[in-house]
């Protein structure tokens, strides 16, 4: 995690982030009314019957709104590499919490858990994104039903 504090707000946000990181990774028990920026029904797009668990290498992050997208290369059981699109919280929410574009460089290895899109494409709504050392990225993730942990 490359932290380049460039303003006061960011530093205090980062401190909050680091405090949050010390919580148990993957815990989704603490429900908070998160101010996320949903603009479409996640329940309509993603499938509760298609839980996924992936480990892959970041190829790009799009810092977009109302949702950001992280793209990761994941090797499937046949050895083929599939580029998955993972929907994250809105870029604006991440920016207000102190994250910046350089914080997630290509090549970073991530482990994610979530649900696949109903249309079967390699797209997922994720409830947990962690680095290989277990630290949580973006305080969990993407959709409004899942609390920030």
């Amino acid at each position, binding site marked *: 995690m490359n932290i380049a504090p*460039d*303003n006061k*707000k960011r530093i205090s946000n980062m401190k909050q982030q680091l405090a949050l990181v010390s919580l148990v990774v993957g815990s989704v028990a603490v429900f908070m*009314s998160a*101010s*996320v*920026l*949903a*603009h*479409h*029904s*996640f*329940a*309509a*797009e*993603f499938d*509760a019957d298609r839980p996924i668990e992936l480990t892959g290498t970041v190829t790009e992050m*799009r810092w*977009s*709104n*109302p*949702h950001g*997208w992280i793209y990761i290369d994941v090797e499937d059981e046949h050895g083929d590499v599939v580029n998955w*699109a993972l*929907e994250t919280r*809105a870029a*604006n929410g991440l*920016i*207000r919490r102190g994250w910046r574009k350089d914080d997630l460089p290509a090549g970073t290895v991530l482990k994610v858990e979530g*649900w696949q*899109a*109903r*249309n079967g*494409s390699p*797209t997922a*709504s994720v409830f947990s994104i962690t680095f290989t050392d277990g630290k949580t990225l973006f305080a969990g993730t993407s*959709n*409004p*039903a*899942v609390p920030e942990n």
Partner: protein
Amino acid sequence: MLARSLISLMLISGAVSAQSLPRTTEGSPNLQGIWQVANRASYNIEDHVARHDMPAGRGVVDGGEIPYQAWALEQRNANFSARAAADPLSKCYLPGVPRMMYMEFPFHIFQTNDHVAITFEWQQVFRLIYANGEPPMYPGIEAWMGHSRGRWEGDVFVVDVTDHNDSTWFDAAGNFHSDAMQLTERYTMLDKDTIEYAVSIDDPQVFTRPWTMRMELHRQTKMDRILEYQCQAEVEEANGDFERDERVWYPAPIPDDNAPFDAAAGSPLPQLSVPAEVSRLADGTPDISGYYMADAGGANYGLEARERDFLMPASRGQVVDPPDGRLPYQTWAREESNDRALPHRGYDDPTAHCFVAGVPRSHYVPSPFFILQPPGYVVVLHERMSWRQIPLDGRAHLPDQMRLWQGDSVGRWIDDTLVVESKNFNGKAWLNEAGDVISHAQTVVETFTPTGADQVIYRATVADPIAYTRPWTIEMPFNSQDEELLEVACLEDNGDLQHLKDVRDEYRARQQEEN
């Protein structure tokens, strides 16, 4: 003697001319009003002859030609050839600055001490220009419309526009820039109905030197409000991607088998008290300006209390009248609401297409918003790129046939509460992702009551005889924070819509097979 008289005469006439400009109480020229260019710069900022879809026009570039580097001139020419599909505006993407300023749509400038807001008729775009002398809270965050900081230099309003992306063009002819572009805009009032708009472009990656465009903005003296042009919504209605709903879109009639609408029903709500420490404007009205986020409690996922269901979050329930917290639906509308909650209907939610959210949804989508109180208005800028402008001059609503996504709002202060009445809706909006129903027949009365230094209690009473049996009211706090708005370029990155469409199309194909 004669020369001296002439000079003093010139000085006097100069002074008269400067004095005849409308000015704010602080003495700056008052730019507030509705403005529009009268040129063809949006087609091509250089001199150009007529072509298909492009009327002829004179250029607005000082010296005539844009000083492109050689490679960039080739790129511009390639853009020109491919313009029909390559112009970002052909996809209804945000036009960027300066292009937004000279499109053939009017815009409204609002002016306070600390801010100048510009609301555009085109797709409810706005600019919020911070003129409070503070450094930006989020420097370096790239945006389609850039980031604007303004200041007065004498009688000239000077705006630095930074942090552009490289995805916008200057015009429909392919004139372009890089993300290194820095703009300096100068707004000089020439007389009460004319502003000279000059913008200097500095982008060493694309041009050989800085250059300037110059044009006049004309006050639209016959317009009393700007309307809407929802570019993408119009495209999708025309091509069938966004389907008409005959039951709720204007001019749907009240269904024959509806229960009678009891307009007088309603329980009195607790009176809200306004504490003495609430800050006030010079005219004594409460100052509710600033950045807000609704404590919406899941209103965007249901206005009635509900538990979380897979990825649909819980809602604490915002309905305060009827007292049971239930929306007083007509039977058909309750059934429709339940149907909209099914996965194959997710595509039908207008906000999934990045269309504007309507009223009251714009306040709880959830995204922050910024309230301004320029003279005679309350203006709300929603971060998700839409605005509401609420005149306080007691004017009548638009004629009934004029229908808008955000409706037509008029407001007044009653004691210390801002009361806003909105009608003239087109009925295209949903109340939330859960699919709560609203029709074009809705009238909304909203109240904004400051109950603390950093809080406004918001209530909205909706009367809609097509979808409901009686009026109902929701309530939620709006909390103010020391924050700035960022940009939501929704349409430009809407990766979800195709997925939702696939789910709908697969459902329809299955239905067809079964029949």
